[in-house]
Structures are given as structure tokens and as C-alpha cells.
């Protein structure tokens, strides 16, 4: 499959690296040739210099036989026009674009085949906002992933040494849940190592645990797994960019929100949109300001500027001054590995989130959603089981009978309104949304094939 990526920025380059390693044919277009050269030195891709929306550039990148175009340049307009050109002139089957401006996104009728033919819109700000919102919604969670329109969720928590689950086998953890609440641990990371969760696997302190449950059960499960975590009331957001503003709007009146913005003009604009939050003008690393605003009573501090270093440093200051939990946007994976779990509770990578969202579309075989875990080390996949016992390799079979590729486990099933945890004898029915965790990325294509409906399969 041939994919053209427009823009070799953080998302474009990251996507190119991940996809090229999975044997896709990748061409990357950017006007900055030195950036392309660096990228070509690292992975086997074709770099094409030039304006991303100009037909001659696209031709040089081989758009005529491309299966997909992913427009992630820094300009919304270039991305949109490139998709339009790919559709109108070259009939490129799939077109994905990143569009940031909410003004465009609020008019969904725009992005239809008759107007601007984009199949999938990616809005990193929206994705990051939702991601952080989940973290505030569930204190203690490090990552929250939605499946089947949010009916089921997968939550990552760090097993603190005083947590009731530490030292117990997973079977016991499932049994201690209150009646009517079902959950299942689907993945376990010990350090960098992925551990396949079995019934008798014992949870150790500092393990990263991913569990799956129905959305309405999540608070109760969280309550059982990590006691002593108080709900969040006071939130401080540092940085009044798009993410800061959207997050403040989303948090609304349910929380006490304080937002710090450096520029007076920008602060004025945000303040007009925000009914409940208090907008402060100042430097987010100014300890006096933080103290005056009661940082020691803040439940969660979120550093949301677009500068990695500023985010990390201001979060460290906030933590030292007494913020209970700090969440930081960090784009560089190296930084994220360095600080997460030590000085900073959660490092959120917009790049990784965006790439994860793009990946969902790359996957074939009825895969509906893909989430990337541990910065791409593993993937949580939601696939729809289609066909019947004759044409599908999953439908009509008990989970124990399905031949999964190595490293993959079925975590649960969403059947209509119900969320079922996977048991060995659970039978997959047509229309089920199956949630799978894959820790070995090289076998992911096998997983895709598993969910393909084939007329010839007997």
C-alpha cells in the first residue's frame, strides 16, 4: 500500500517512521529539503521537496498510484486543498487531513464529497483536550481510551505500593470487585517490559496496569483499585492556547478552573469565552503567582503550552509547591521517558495521540479504532466482527478457539449496549466489537487479516 504524507513535521515524520517500519511504501512531501534528508537517512522512504498542494509536487511523489494521502502540514488550508486536488485530479481513494481551526470543524457539511472531500479529519487539539479531560475525570488514571463510542473504556493506572491490588494475582483482583461490576486487566507493563496478563499473574508495585470496563463501572473499579484518590475539584491550566481554552470550556462549571496565560490580549479573548474559569495573566513558572493562587491546594496542574521545556519546568515547580498531580504536554519522546513517573505524573504526547488516531485509519480488516499505548510499544484495537461462521475466522467461535497472533489478547466485547469481559468460552457474535490488545507490532497485520471477511474461507 502506498501512502503519501504531506508535511515532515513532528506528526508527519513520526507517522512516516512508524509506517515505513511496517512495510508501507511512503513518500513524504515537504518544502524543507534538509528535513527530508534527515528523515531519509533514518528510514527507507522517498522524500519529495516542494509545495505540498501543487500538482507537480504531488506527481513527483507518485500520487497517481497512491492509495492514501495524509495531509499534516502546518497549514489547514494547504491540507484541505491538497485533499481536494488528490480527489479531483487523481482520484486518490483515501484522504486524511489535519485541520486545527475550530471554525472549519464546526461546519461538518463542508467536508463532504461534493465540497472538500476529506475522509477523516484529525484535530490534534481536540484529541489532546479529550485525552486530558479523561485524566481529570478519573483521578489516578494515566491514560483513558474509548471504545465503541465510549461505551467501554480502557484505563491505565500505576499500581502504587499501598494499592490493594499489589501482591495479588489478577484472578483475586477481579473477584474483589463489587457485585455487578466486571473488569479485566488486559495489559501489564513492568518497566519497559510487557507482561502477558494471566489469571495467576501477580501485580507488583509500580506496574502499569491497563484494565477494561464498561464506562459506567469505571469510577467504581478505580475506587477499588486505587483507594485514597480523592476526586478532583481544583484545576490549574498553564497556557491559554487552543488546548487550554478548549479544556477550560469543556471542564465548565463542574470544576474550579484557573487558567494562566502570558499574553494580556490573548487572556482577554479567552476570558470572553469562559463563563466559569478565572483567567490569570502571568508567567506559569512564576512561583509567587502560583503560591498566591493557592497551588498547594490544586488537585491537578496541567502544563499546556507548546514549549516542551517550559511545560516540564513549570510542572516541576508546581509539583514542588504542592500541586497534587501534574500533567504535562511533552512532544519529544525522549523527554517524556525522562520525566514521566518521576517529577511529572503524566506526560501527554500530542504527536503520539495524533499518530494513534491516524493509525486507526491505516488498519484494515474491519478495524474501527486503534489506540497506541506506551508511546507506540503496544496497540489497543477495536475490530468489528462481521460475516458468519462460514466466512469469518472469529464469528461463531469461542475466544479460546480463535487463533490469535503472538502477543495478542482479547480483552472484551461490546455487544449492542452491553460490555462483556472476555472469558475463554465467550462466543463471538456477528456485529460484536472486539477489543484486542497487541503487544507485538509485527504481528498486527495478522490481526487485521483475522477480522477480514473472506468468501473463500472454510
Amino acid at each position, binding site marked *: 500500500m*502506498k501512502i503519501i504524507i504531506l508535511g515532515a513535521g513532528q506528526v508527519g515524520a513520526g507517522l512516516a517512521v512508524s509506517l515505513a517500519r511496517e512495510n508501507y*511504501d511512503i513518500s513524504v512531501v515537504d518544502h524543507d529539503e534538509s528535513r527530508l534528508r534527515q528523515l531519509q*537517512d533514518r528510514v527507507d522512504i*522517498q522524500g519529495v521537496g516542494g509545495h505540498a498542494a501543487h500538482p507537480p509536487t504531488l506527481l513527483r511523489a507518485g500520487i497517481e498510484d497512491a492509495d492514501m494521502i495524509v495531509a499534516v502540514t502546518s497549514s489547514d488550508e494547504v491540507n484541505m486543498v491538497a485533499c481536494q486536488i488528490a480527489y479531483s485530479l487523481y482520484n486518490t481513494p483515501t484522504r486524511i487531513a489535519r485541520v486545527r481551526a475550530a471554525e472549519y470543524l464546526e461546519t461538518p457539511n463542508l467536508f463532504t464529497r461534493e465540497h472538500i472531500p476529506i475522509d477523516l479529519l484529525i484535530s490534534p487539539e481536540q484529541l489532546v483536550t479529550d485525552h486530558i479531560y479523561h485524566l481529570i475525570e478519573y483521578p489516578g488514571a494515566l491514560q483513558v481510551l474509548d471504545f465503541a463510542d465510549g461505551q467501554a473504556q480502557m484505563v491505565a493506572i500505576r499500581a502504587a505500593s499501598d494499592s490493594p491490588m499489589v501482591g495479588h494475582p489478577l484472578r483475586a483482583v477481579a473477584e474483589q470487585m463489587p457485585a455487578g461490576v466486571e473488569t479485566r486487566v488486559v495489559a501489564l507493563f513492568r518497566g519497559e517490559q510487557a507482561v502477558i496478563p494471566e489469571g495467576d499473574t501477580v501485580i507488583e508495585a509500580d506496574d502499569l496496569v491497563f484494565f477494561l470496563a464498561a464506562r459506567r463501572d469505571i469510577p467504581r473499579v478505580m475506587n477499588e483499585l486505587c483507594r485514597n484518590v480523592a476526586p478532583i475539584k481544583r484545576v490549574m491550566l498553564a497556557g491559554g492556547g487552543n488546548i487550554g481554552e478548549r479544556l477550560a470550556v469543556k471542564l465548565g462549571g463542574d470544576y474550579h478552573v484557573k487558567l494562566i496565560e502570558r499574553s494580556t490580549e490573548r487572556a482577554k479573548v479567552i476570558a470572553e469565552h469562559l463563563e466559569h474559569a478565572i483567567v490569570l495573566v502571568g508567567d506559569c513558572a512564576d512561583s509567587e503567582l502560583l503560591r498566591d493562587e493557592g497551588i498547594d491546594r490544586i488537585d491537578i496542574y496541567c502544563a499546556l503550552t507548546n514549549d516542551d521545556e517550559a511545560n516540564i519546568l513549570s510542572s516541576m515547580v508546581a509539583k514542588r509547591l504542592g500541586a497534587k498531580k501534574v500533567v504535562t504536554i511533552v512532544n519529544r519522546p525522549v523527554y517524556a521517558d525522562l520525566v514521566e513517573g518521576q517529577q511529572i505524573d503524566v506526560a501527554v504526547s500530542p504527536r503520539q495521540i495524533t499518530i494513534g488516531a491516524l493509525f486507526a485509519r491505516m488498519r484494515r480488516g474491519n478495524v474501527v479504532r486503534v489506540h497506541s499505548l506506551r508511546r507506540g510499544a503496544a496497540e489497543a484495537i477495536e475490530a468489528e466482527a462481521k460475516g458468519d461462521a462460514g466466512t469469518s475466522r472469529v464469528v461463531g467461535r469461542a475466544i479460546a478457539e480463535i487463533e490469535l497472533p503472538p502477543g495478542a489478547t482479547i480483552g472484551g466485547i461490546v455487544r449492542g449496549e452491553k460490555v462483556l469481559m472476555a472469558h475463554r468460552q465467550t462466543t463471538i457474535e456477528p456485529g460484536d466489537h472486539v477489543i484486542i490488545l497487541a503487544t507485538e507490532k509485527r504481528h498486527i497485520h495478522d490481526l487485521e487479516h483475522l477480522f477480514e471477511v473472506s468468501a473463500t474461507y472454510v
Partner: protein
Amino acid sequence: MNPNLLCRLLSLLLLLAGVLQFLPALIAWVYDDSSFTTFILSGSGLLLIGAAAWWPARRVRIDLRLRDGFLVVALSWIVIGLAGALPIVMLKVPQVGVVDAIFESVSGLTTTGATVLIGLEAMPPGLLFHRALLQWLGGMGIVVLAVAVLPMLRIGGLQLYRAEMPGPVKDSKLTPRIADTAKALWTIYFSLTLLCMLAYHVAGMSWFDAVTHAFTTLSTGGYSNYDASIAHFQSLLIELIAIVFMTLGGINFAIHFLAWRRASLVPYQQDPEVRTYMTLLLVFAAIATAAIVFYGVEPHWPSALRLGLFQAVSTMTSTGYTTAGFYLWPGFLPIFFIFIVFIGGCAGSTGGGMKVIRIMLLYKQAVSEIQRVIHPASAGIIRIGSRAVESRVITAVWGYFFIYVASFAILSVLLNATGLDLETSFSAVATCLTNLGPSLGVAGPHFADLNAVAKSVLVFAMLLGRLEIFTLLVLLTPAYWKDA
């Protein structure tokens, strides 16, 4: 550089070289000549050595670093050059020494075409085929071939490709994957060779001559099965076919690829380098023709045009076929042909020399400097076609130009020091550095009479020219080996 990885890569190339020696063995078997056992022996020997070197390192899985590409490519060329010399040394007819065999093999592989063999008509067909095959493999690059056919080189293939491909901008790929690019290049190369072979056969060559000459035409190598080269055939049609395919061999294969994929001739017309290349060919042919008439070598215009056009195309593309001994021609003609080969073919072609694009860049830079004298505030942007060239590329070309001239000077002095006369030493270095083949002076008819030291220097010059200097010279710098 990890020695195990190097061992693994080189042994794979040795295996490839060993397998390829069974082809001349097959020819020798068909023609029932004396070289059959030699090629079987040397081919099996190479396979054995290759396998022995490969076995201990077979499990090595390490990525090639950027700088490792140079070492691997340079060593591959040396190793394959030596492997090609093995059967030549072992042959009873002709009886040649080790240095001569290496010279012949490297001259083939680098598509130079300078020969130490006299009386080619009497040589076993197996050997003639072996020489032509070496040239054909060296034309598009044996490492590029390895990248195309060996899946294990998929990772790090670009580093190798870059160290072997001629031209100033080395990272242009035709397809997203380097292995596919290498495959596309070899497919085009193979198809053009096939076409050339059929044309030669239709024009009257025997199948054997058609195959070997097609090999040495497309690779712009210039080995022939006859001492008199193309003049042996005395056929206008064959000369015209040779002119067409030598010209094609001197064009960037990326342009062939575009023309093939779009099924149109427009890419040739649009590419500024190809246009300059064609213009230069015509201008040089015209100058040569006029001089041939002027000096009375051939007073009739049509015959002079036939001689001039063929010789201009053959030398500028660095092929080195001859239809007349131009080293005996009067006036400026001999030195003229030696000078035009310095321009050479296009980047990414099988042609030698400094490449048309570099000359264009140097020329444009010079013009822009003159312009700067008149308009001190001019932006000084160099354009090729409608696109500005990065200043980095231009500085690199200037550096290349300096080293090229310096190598030429130093090697000429060295050759002169071995006792050769001035004309011979300068022209021999020029012809080897540009991978042309024919020379002037003592080396005019062939290189057999040169001393062994001179031949060794020329072997180095040929490798230097084919690998575009940097690939080989970078290995001789201490900085390359520090923290390696």
C-alpha cells in the same frame, strides 16, 4: 563499522560474484573453449570463500550507519575487482600476470575499457564474455544490483546506493523503497541492453558479438571482442546503433524511468541536464567533423561526419569504442577527445567523467560570480531548470572539482615518475579517471606495454573515477576511522 556486519555483506557480494562466473563458464561450454574449467574452478572457489566468510556472520543483524556505506561499497568494488581477476590469472591463454589481470578486471568493472590484452580475436569466448559481463555489472553498479536482489540489504540500502550512484545529488529516489528503486534501475538497464542486443544482431553481428557489445555499449564501457573495436565491423548501421545506445547509456536512468512510466518522451525534453548533454554532443561532433575535414584525415564530409559523430559520442559518454585510431590523428583532435570526456555523461547514468550536471553548476556559478561584479547586490541564486539549487550542493561540487583536478595532477606526476613520457602519463590518467578507455602516446593502442607500478596507479585511478572520488578518499582520512 562492525567487522561481522562487513564480513556478512562482503561475503554476500562474493557469493554473487561467484554465481555470476558460471555464466562465462556456460559460454565456454557452448563454444567448447579452453576456459571452461577455469571459470568453473574460480566460480566454485569464490562460492566456497564467500560461504566460509558468510557462515560465522550469518546471524548478524545490525543496521548500517550512514558512514558505513562508503566502506562497504569501496571494499565491494575492490573485492569484486579481485574476484574478476581470478579466472584471468588462472587462464592458460592468454598468459597474463597478476597486475595485468587485476587491471583488466577493474578496467572492466569500472567501465573504463582500457585493455592489456592483444589479439582479442584469438581469445577464448568465455574470457571475452567475462570481460563484457564485468562491464555490464559495473555499469549500473553491482552494489545497486545487490540492493535490488538481496532482501537483507533493504535496511541501509540507501547508504550503499548513495556511495555508488554517480552525481551531485545522491538521495533522490524514484520510488518510496530503495530496493524498488534499484530494481527499477536494473529493469530499465536490462531492457535497454536487450533492445541494443537485438538491434546489433539484426544489423549483422553474431549473437555472441551482439550480446557482449550490447553489454559494453549500455554500460558505456567500451570493451570489444576485436582489437580494432567497432571498426572491425565496417558497418554504418552498427555504428549508428552504437551511437544511439551509447547516448542512452549516458542519460540519467531516473529520466528513462520517468519516460517509461509516463510512456512519453517529454521527460527527456524537460530535463535541463539531458538538453545540455545532447547539445554538447552535437556541438562536439560538429567541431570534430570540421577538424577531421580541415586536417585532411577524411576529406569527404559524409565520411568525416560518420567518424566525428561516432568518436565524439563514444568519448564524451566515456564508452571508448573507436572506429579509427584517433590517437594518431593530427592537430588538436587527440587532446580534444581526451578533454571532452571530463564532462562525461549525466548524473545517475552509466557514463563516466565529472558529469554534465556538475559542469553546468560550475559554469552557472562562474557566470553568477561575474554578474556579482556588475550587480554586487544580486541574490546569486543558481537555478537548474526552474528550481533553485541549494548552495550546499554547489559547494560540494566545487570541492569535488578540486579533488578531481588534484587527483588528476598527483596521479599524472606519479605515472610520469615511473618512467612514462608526459603525453602517455597525462592521457592515461585522464582516460582512467574518467573511465573512458582509449589513451594517447605509448598507451594509444593498448596498455600492455606499461610497467606494473603504472598499471597499479591506473587501477586506483579507475576505482577513484567510478566511485566518484569521495567514496574512496573518505576512507583514507583519519577522521573516518576515529570513533568509528
